[in-house]
């Protein structure tokens, strides 16, 4: 860590020497300690995206290219117009480092932060989703501890704020053992008018600046620069840099903020997150083209004797900054008093374009409003890791036991088994909107009360695929998450992403990031899905083992379903109906669960994405939806298509007689056909009377739609047409294995 000399004192900062030099030159003086701290935080990787920005430019301009996008990247959350006067805001963010140190409060404050991001777009937060990544649970008390308390942190915080957690995703992999990934996503709903009322900027001189919510304490000081360094043993000593969440105060902030916005007197709104009040004020005034005079001692503190440095950089949770029209000041204060929320008028905006902060009569900060946002860009080197060729050429060993045993083993594996243990702890019903609930669909579906519209949302990625081929893997993640909302009947409307990678200063890590972004950007352009926001988390690696986490470009998709009759769910409905598979299965076992569970190998040929084929399949499925031909739909994911079929049998205790003859056009070995994770496939249930018409449509779209068999009342899956053997699977046994894995590991 470089040391710099300012005003005669030697200080440790994360800023580089050229950065400090730039600051001194721009200010034409040495910065004060507080100013230096502000730059240190605002120019950290976490706040400034200095390594990632050049790559994020690859995403096309969503606001310019899509008329329904109201707010795109760079804002606190992406916002889209969903019609009938409603706006949806959503964002996804990481809280990896704090959660790896203190899982309960790390995860809880992650939820707190993402709720504020959405709230400050002027809408009510109505749903949460949580993609999580840990080391394997089996024989690993540390992973179990992290997993248990991350879930509890999300549950306790989300449940208390009254925002349902409607979905999520979990991956277990050794690479996440020392550095778990905790991503949090939030969706907000409001009128377009409310969204337009309160932008995140202060563009009018003379407005009042009010700080509302929790008090400012010494917790979380420099939490941001902490997230931009790799975790070490010393990180345990960083524990005071993890903030403590207060969901009750958050709930009151939500209600008070929404009531305040409804008055029309709030002209700007900003949550206090990384970088605390200094970050919020510089962004509000910098983006609004104004300046401000702040009386720092008006800020209510949790403890006496805090220095200006501590107050300005504190990342204490549950705080919001309001820019209020002078004539509305009294009305807004009255609302805050009703909710008994602590608040203080801390200053006013002016036209000076300078942010001036006074500690009593002393001017401690005097910075051009835009200076903090003029962070440098760093062009990082990229290098493909040398080990990849060897990994990709790994061969699949001969199956070690009969195929039934392999399937039973797979369905019980941590990455495939039921995640009910998690979602039972989340209140996923509050808000009376949840129509497709956790466990009954690939995505969470909420009704939009007052309309006949429904929103579907899902999150995820496949880090094992990305590890072998990040460009294709990131695209594959998109195919999978879009597939989740499509399986429920929704058209994907917009995407946000959360990029979790290793140290960007390591060219191999940066190569993963750059190629993941390229993959996402290319796919989204081709399939016309706007990217309306993102978050980048670097430095996810374990100092002890010197390994980065597997690359995790986590994707969140929001889709819309028009009409209740168009909602599709996962469970098979009626015996006698057909089971069809959409899309072909290729020799793509690289990074599969089969490889990892049976042979503990990570390599092989990973799935490739053909956008044209994917688009044709989606169009085909939507035409079947329009013709009301699909009774159930589930996308094929980890473990291959037999796992998907079994999952669809569970709920209504059905079975299936399947014949794979004629499906294996690549002439694959049985295990490759069954367990390949080729992306973009669906299993659908249809009425036999529609089959001829479906065949014709499949030809029209040039899509593989192969009838695998029929549903039967008996809870068993019988498979014929394989090369080595026929298969008979007991659904009750599968369900039992599927349900018991996590409880058996956790509830002891």
């Amino acid at each position: 860590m470089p040391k710099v000399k300012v005003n005669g004192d030697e200080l440790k900062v994360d800023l580089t020497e050229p950065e400090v030099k730039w600051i001194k030159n721009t200010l034409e003086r040495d910065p004060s300690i507080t100013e230096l701290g502000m730059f240190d935080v605002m120019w950290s990787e976490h706040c400034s995206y200095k390594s990632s920005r050049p790559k994020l430019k690859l995403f096309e301009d969503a606001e310019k290219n899509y008329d329904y996008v109201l707010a795109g990247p760079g804002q606190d959350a992406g916002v889209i117009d969903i019609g009938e006067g409603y706006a949806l805001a959503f964002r996804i963010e990481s809280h990896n480092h704090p959660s790896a140190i203190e899982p309960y409060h790390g995860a809880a404050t992650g939820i707190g932060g993402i709720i504020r991001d959405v709230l400050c777009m002027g809408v009510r937060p109505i749903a949460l989703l949580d993609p999580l990544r840990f080391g394997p649970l089996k024989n690993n008390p540390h992973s179990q501890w992290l997993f248990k308390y991350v879930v509890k942190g999300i549950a306790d915080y989300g449940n208390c704020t009254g925002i349902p957690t409607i979905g999520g995703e979990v991956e277990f992999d050794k690479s996440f053992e020392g550095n778990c990934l905790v991503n949090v996503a939030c969706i907000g709903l409001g009128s377009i008018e409310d969204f337009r009322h309160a932008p995140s900027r202060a563009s009018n001189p003379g407005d009042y600046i009010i700080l509302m919510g929790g008090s400012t304490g010494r917790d979380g000081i420099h939490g941001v620069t902490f997230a931009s360094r790799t975790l070490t043993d010393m990180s345990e000593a960083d524990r005071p840099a993890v903030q403590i969440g207060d969901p009750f105060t958050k709930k009151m902030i939500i209600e008070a903020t929404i009531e305040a916005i409804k008055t029309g007197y709030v002209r700007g709104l900003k949550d206090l997150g990384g970088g605390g009040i200094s970050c919020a004020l510089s962004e509000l005034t910098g983006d609004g083209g104004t300046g401000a005079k702040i009386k720092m001692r008006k800020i209510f503190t949790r403890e006496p004797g805090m220095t200006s440095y501590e107050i300005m950089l504190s990342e204490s949770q549950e705080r919001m900054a309001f820019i209020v029209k002078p004539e509305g000041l009294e009305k807004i204060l009255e609302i805050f008093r009703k909710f008994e929320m602590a608040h203080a008028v801390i200053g006013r905006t002016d036209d000076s374009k300078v942010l001036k902060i006074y500690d009593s009569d002393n001017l401690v900060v005097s910075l051009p409003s835009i200076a903090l946002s003029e962070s440098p860009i760093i062009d990082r080197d990229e290098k493909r890791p040398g080990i990849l060729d060897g990994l990709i050429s790994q061969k699949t060993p001969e199956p070690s036991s009969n195929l039934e045993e392999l399937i039973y083993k797979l369905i019980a594996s941590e990455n495939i088994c039921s995640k009910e243990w998690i979602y039972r702890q989340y209140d996923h019903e509050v808000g009376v909107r949840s129509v497709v609930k956790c466990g009954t669909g690939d995505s969470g579906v909420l009704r939009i009360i007052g309309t006949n519209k429904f929103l579907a949302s899902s999150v995820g990625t496949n880090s094992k695929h990305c590890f072998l081929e990040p460009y294709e893997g990131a695209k594959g993640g998109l195919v999978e998450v879009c597939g989740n909302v499509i399986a429920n009947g929704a058209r994907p409307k917009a995407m946000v992403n959360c990029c979790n990678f290793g140290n960007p200063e390591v060219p191999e890590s940066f190569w993963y990031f750059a190629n993941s972004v390229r993959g996402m950007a290319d796919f989204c352009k081709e399939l016309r899905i706007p990217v309306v926001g993102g978050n980048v988390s670097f430095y996810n690696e374990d100092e002890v083992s010197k390994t980065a986490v597997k690359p995790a470009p986590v994707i969140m998709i929001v889709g819309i379903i028009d009409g209740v009759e168009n909602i599709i769910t996962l469970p098979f409905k009626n015996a006698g109906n057909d089971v069809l598979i959409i899309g072909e299965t290729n020799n793509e076992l690289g990074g599969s669960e089969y490889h990892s569970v049976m042979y503990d190998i990570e390599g092989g040929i990973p799935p490739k994405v053909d956008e044209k084929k994917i688009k044709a399949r989606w169009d085909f499925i939507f035409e079947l939806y329009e013709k009301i031909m699909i009774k159930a739909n589930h996308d094929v994911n980890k473990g291959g298509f037999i796992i998907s079929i079994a999952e669809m049998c569970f709920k209504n205790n059905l079975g299936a007689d399947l014949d794979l003859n004629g499906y294996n056009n690549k002439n694959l070995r049985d295990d490759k056909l069954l367990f390949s994770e080729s992306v973009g496939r669906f299993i659908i249930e249809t009425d036999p009377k529609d089959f001829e018409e479906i065949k014709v449509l499949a030809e029209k779209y040039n899509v593989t739609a192969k009838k695998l068999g029929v549903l039967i009342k008996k809870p068993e899956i019988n498979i014929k047409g394989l090369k080595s053997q026929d298969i008979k699977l007991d659904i009750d046994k599968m369900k039992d294995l599927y349900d018991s894995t996590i409880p058996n590991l956790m509830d002891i």
Partner: protein
Amino acid sequence: MTIKIAVVQFPGANCDLDAIHVLNNVIGVETSLVWHNHFKEAEFDGVILPGGFSFGDYLRAGIIAAHSPALDEARIMLKDGRPILGICNGFQILTEAEFLPGALLQNDSLKFVCKWINIRVENNNTPFTRKMKNGDVLDIPIAHGEGRYFTDNLKELEENQQIVFKYSDENGKYTQKANPNGSMENIAGICNLERNCMGLMPHPERASEAILSPKCTTHGKLFFDSMVEFIKRRS
């Protein structure tokens, strides 16, 4: 006559708007959301204490709200027979305020639990269950961390028929498996001696519209329909 029902909004309540939605839009009865400090009993024919985490459930679930002036107002309604319904956190508040006997302890699983379960009607002779039949099995969801009902006076509760609902399986059998939180005798909801105050852990407001129910049932609606009918007959 028009009847007026209040949903009391304690700080931290989070099922308040859900209850308002169901009463206003599904049941069609005029219902007001009233901030707890502003609640005046004289304006209302009945009151609902909604679910949530009043005052963050800090200290103990429901204990701080039990000391809100809203409960002093509700006490007047309790005495003159107007109906008071406590849902989830509302139930916890009602036991803490001693409108109802017993206490709600942490679930035996030590975890929050959110799922659809079944309850069986034990007493349809209350303002909240008159549209049900004894022995009816209802579909309804729960979502709580502290729902394990406990009383040291079980006998009296049974003798006075104050047990209104018990957790059961879908055939109405009281099994241990059907008990989601370890409640004594599978108790899910109880009423006072006079029958005009009831608390339950499950959420009828989440079970009042077919679109939200896994089995397309609307059993939650029966609670509010009963309450409205009781108020109409009473006046």
